[in-house]
C-alpha cells in the first residue's frame, strides 16, 4: 500500500517545520518535502511605524541571529537617512567596528549553539541512536566536561553581545548613522583577559579549536558516510570584499558555480534586478532564485559551506590554515557535501573568535565619535541592508514616507535562500536512506533531519511573510467558547 511518512515537528532546529515523504506500493520514494508550517507577517506589520523602530522590531524575527537582523536594518536606515553605503558613504571607523564586533560575537554564539547543542549529538551518538539520547541531555550524561566548555563558550559570546548591544538578546545599540555606545577599556579587558566565570579570548580560541577537532575525529571515523551523505550541487553565494574574500558585514554579492567560476556579481542595492521569489502551495516559505538562470538552475546555497566555497582566504591565521585543508579536500572545486557544512561551521567559529580578538585590540572601539548626522536634504527615504548572517546572506529593504513612517518592507532571509537546496537535500537523503527499504525506522527518518540540520535553518526567520487563512477554522478559549472563526 502506498504510504506517507511524516516528521512532525522537525526538531533541533529553530522554528517550525514538517517533512512528508510519499512512498509507492514498492516502498520507493516518489516525493519528499520540507514544509514550513508557520508565518508571522513582519513585512506588513512594520508598516506605519517610525523607521527607526525597524531594527528593534524586525530583530524579533529571530532569537538566535537577532544581531544580524538588527544590523541589516541599521544598514538599511543608514542608506535611508543619506549616510549609508547606498551613497557609498561608510560609517565612521569606530561605529562600524563596534557593529562588526557585535556581529562576530553573534556569529560565535549562534554557531556554537547550532553546532554543539543541535548537531554534535549526532556526531557522538550516531543518527539512529535513541531519540531521547541524541541531544544536549545525552551530551551532559556522556561528556559533562565538554558541555561545560560549550556552555562557557556560548556564555562568552552572549556576554560580549550584551556589552556591545546592551542586552543578551534583542539589543538596542545600532541607530541610523552609527551606534549609541562605544566599548570602554574595562569592558574590553574583561573579554581579553577573562575573569571569574568568564573565559579569556585565548581560552575562547582554544575551545573553538576543540570544536574543529571534534569534526576531524568524526570525519576520520565515518569518512564514507559523511562524504556521501546528500551531495547536493548548487550555486554558492555570499558577500565578498574587493579581494573576493568573504566579508560578514559588507560587500558585493558574488555567486559561483561548481568550478568556482563567478556566475554573477553585483551590488546588493540592485537585488531586485536579479532575484525573484516563487511560491509553492505546500509551504509558507518562498523560493528565491536568480532570474537570469531560472528556478531550477538559479537557486543558490548560502551559509557556512557557501561562504567557504566562495572565499579564497580567511583573514585570520588559524582559520586560514583550516580553510586550506578544507579547500584541498575538493581539489579547488566547490564542496557540495552537505555534512561538510558542519566542518565549515566549526572553521567559522574559530574565525569569529580570531576576528573578535583582533577587534578587541583595536583602539577605535574607544572612539567617542559614534554618529554621523546628515543634513535633512540627504534623506533618501529608501534603504537596503545586506549582511552575512550566521545562516547566510540576509537582506532588508525599507521605504519610508517623509514623515518617517515605514511604507514598505521586504526581507529575504538566509534560510529562505536555502529553501530549494534544503528540499533537494531532503529528497537526496530520502532516496538513499528510505527508498526501497522493507522496514522503516525512526533512525532513517532522523537521517533526513540530519540533512536539514546541516543548514541550521531558522524557520522562525523564514516565516516573516504573511500568508493566508485557508478554509474555515474555529478557535476556542479555555472555557470552550469560540473566540475566532474564519472562512477563506
Amino acid at each position, binding site marked *: 500500500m502506498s*504510504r*506517507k511518512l511524516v*516528521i*512532525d*515537528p522537525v*526538531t*533541533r532546529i*529553530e522554528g*517550525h517545520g*514538517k517533512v512528508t515523504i*510519499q512512498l509507492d506500493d514498492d516502498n520507493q520514494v516518489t516525493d519528499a518535502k520540507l*514544509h514550513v*508550517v*508557520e*508565518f508571522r*507577517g513582519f513585512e506588513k*506589520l512594520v508598516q506605519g511605524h517610525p523607521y527607526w523602530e525597524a531594527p528593534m*522590531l524586525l530583530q*524579533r524575527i*529571530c*532569537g538566535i541571529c*537577532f544581531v544580524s537582523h538588527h544590523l541589516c536594518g541599521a544598514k538599511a536606515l543608514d542608506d535611508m537617512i543619506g549616510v549609508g553605503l547606498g551613497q557609498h558613504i561608510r560609517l565612521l571607523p569606530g561605529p562600524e567596528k563596534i557593529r562588526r564586533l557585535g556581529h562576530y560575537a553573534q556569529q560565535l554564539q549562534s554557531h556554537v549553539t547550532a553546532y554543539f547543542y*543541535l548537531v554534535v549529538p549526532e556526531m557522538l551518538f550516531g543518527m539512529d541512536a*535513541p531519540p*531521547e*539520547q*541524541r*541531544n*544536549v*541531555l545525552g551530551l*551532559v*550524561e556522556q561528556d559533562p566536561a565538554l*558541555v*561545560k566548555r560549550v*556552555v562557557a563558550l556560548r*556564555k562568552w559570546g*552572549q556576554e560580549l553581545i550584551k556589552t556591545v548591544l546592551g542586552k*543578551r*538578546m534583542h539589543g538596542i545599540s545600532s541607530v541610523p548613522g552609527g551606534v549609541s555606545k562605544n566599548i570602554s577599556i574595562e569592558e574590553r579587558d574583561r573579554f581579553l583577559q577573562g575573569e571569574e566565570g568568564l573565559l579569556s579570548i585565548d581560552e575562547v580560541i582554544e575551545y573553538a579549536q576543540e570544536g574543529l577537532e571534534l569534526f576531524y575525529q568524526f570525519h576520520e571515523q565515518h569518512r564514507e558516510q559523511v562524504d556521501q551523505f546528500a551531495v547536493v550541487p548548487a550555486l554558492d553565494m555570499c558577500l565578498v570584499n574587493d579581494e573576493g574574500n568573504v566579508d560578514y558585514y559588507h560587500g558585493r554579492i558574488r555567486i559561483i558555480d561548481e568550478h568556482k567560476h563567478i556566475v554573477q556579481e553585483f551590488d546588493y542595492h540592485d537585488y531586485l534586478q536579479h532575484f*525573484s521569489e*516563487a*511560491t509553492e*502551495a505546500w*509551504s509558507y516559505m518562498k523560493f528565491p532564485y536568480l532570474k537570469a538562470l531560472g528556478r531550477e538552475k538559479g537557486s543558490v546555497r548560502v551559509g557556512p559551506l557557501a561562504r567557504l566555497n566562495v572565499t579564497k582566504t580567511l583573514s585570520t591565521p588559524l582559520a586560514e590554515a583550516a580553510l586550506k585543508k578544507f579547500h584541498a579536500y575538493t581539489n579547488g572545486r566547490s564542496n557540495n557535501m552537505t555534512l561538510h557544512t558542519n566542518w565549515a561551521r566549526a572553521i567559522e567559529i574559530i574565525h569569529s573568535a580570531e576576528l573578535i580578538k583582533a577587534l578587541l585590540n583595536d583602539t577605535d572601539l574607544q572612539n567617542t565619535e559614534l554618529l554621523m548626522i546628515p543634513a535633512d536634504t540627504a534623506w533618501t527615504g529608501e534603504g537596503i541592508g545586506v549582511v552575512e548572517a550566521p545562516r547566510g546572506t540576509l537582506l532588508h529593504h525599507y521605504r519610508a514616507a517623509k514623515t518617517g513612517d515605514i511604507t*514598505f518592507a*521586504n526581507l529575504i532571509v538566509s534560510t529562505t535562500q536555502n529553501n530549494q537546496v534544503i528540499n533537494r537535500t531532503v529528497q537526496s537523503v530520502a532516496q538513499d536512506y528510505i527508498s526501497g527499504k522493507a522496514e522503516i*525506522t*525512526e*533512525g532513517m*527518518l532522523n537521517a533526513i533531519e540530519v540533512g536539514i540540520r546541516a543548514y541550521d535553518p*531558522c524557520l*522562525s526567520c523564514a516565516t516573516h*511573510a*504573511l*500568508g*493566508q*487563512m485557508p478554509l474555515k477554522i474555529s*478557535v476556542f*478559549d479555555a472555557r470552550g467558547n469560540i473566540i475566532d472563526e*474564519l472562512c477563506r
Partner: protein
Amino acid sequence: MTNSHKKTLFSHDLPATPMDPALQASRDQKIKVAMIGLCGCWGCTLSLLDMDEALIGLLDKVTILRSSLTDIKRIRQRCAIGFIEGGVANEENIETLKEYREHCDILISVGACAIWGGVPAMRNEVELSSCLEEAYVDSITAVANAIPTIPYHEDIPRITTKVYPCHEVVKMDYFIPGCPPDGGTILKVLDDLVNGREFDLPTTMNRYD
C-alpha cells in the same frame, strides 16, 4: 488533498533504538520538564540556555521531555512543568498547546509573545486580505507573469486571523514577562518550583522590553 487516503506514519511512532535502561532509570527519577515554541522567535527558548552553567547543575534534578532541543516529538509521560514560548497563530499551535496543558501540572507563559502575542500580534491590526496580497500577490520579488500561488495545503496548518496569548486558549498557571526574560529569571522560577517552593518572581526581575 490527494494523499488523504494514504496510510500516514509518523516518525515518532516508528521503531526506534531503545534507551540504555540504566540511563533511562536515572532520568525516570528526575523532575520532568517540557518546553516548546509556538509563534515566537526562539529567543525565549534560548533564554533557557542563558541559565549558562546553572543549567548543568539543574540537570541533576531535572530532565527534559518534548522540546525543540530534543527529538522527543510528543509528551508521553506526565510532566511537572511546561514552558511555552510564543503565542497562538495557527491550528498546530492550538493542538500543541492543548497537548502541553493536558500533560503538564504547571504551565508557564515565557515572554511577551506567549503572554500577549508580542510582536507577531501586531498583525492583528491588519486586514487579512491585505496581508495576503502583500506577501504573495504584490510582493516586489514575485515571479513576473506567474499566476500568484497562495500557500494552501493539507500539510501546512491553517492560520488564525489573530495571534492569541496562550491563556486565551488554555489555562496558564504563571507568567514570566520580557522579550525575552533573562536566563536568571527563568532559573529563579525553575529552581523555586523544582525545590518545592512557590512561584515567587520579584517585580525587580521582570523585564518589560
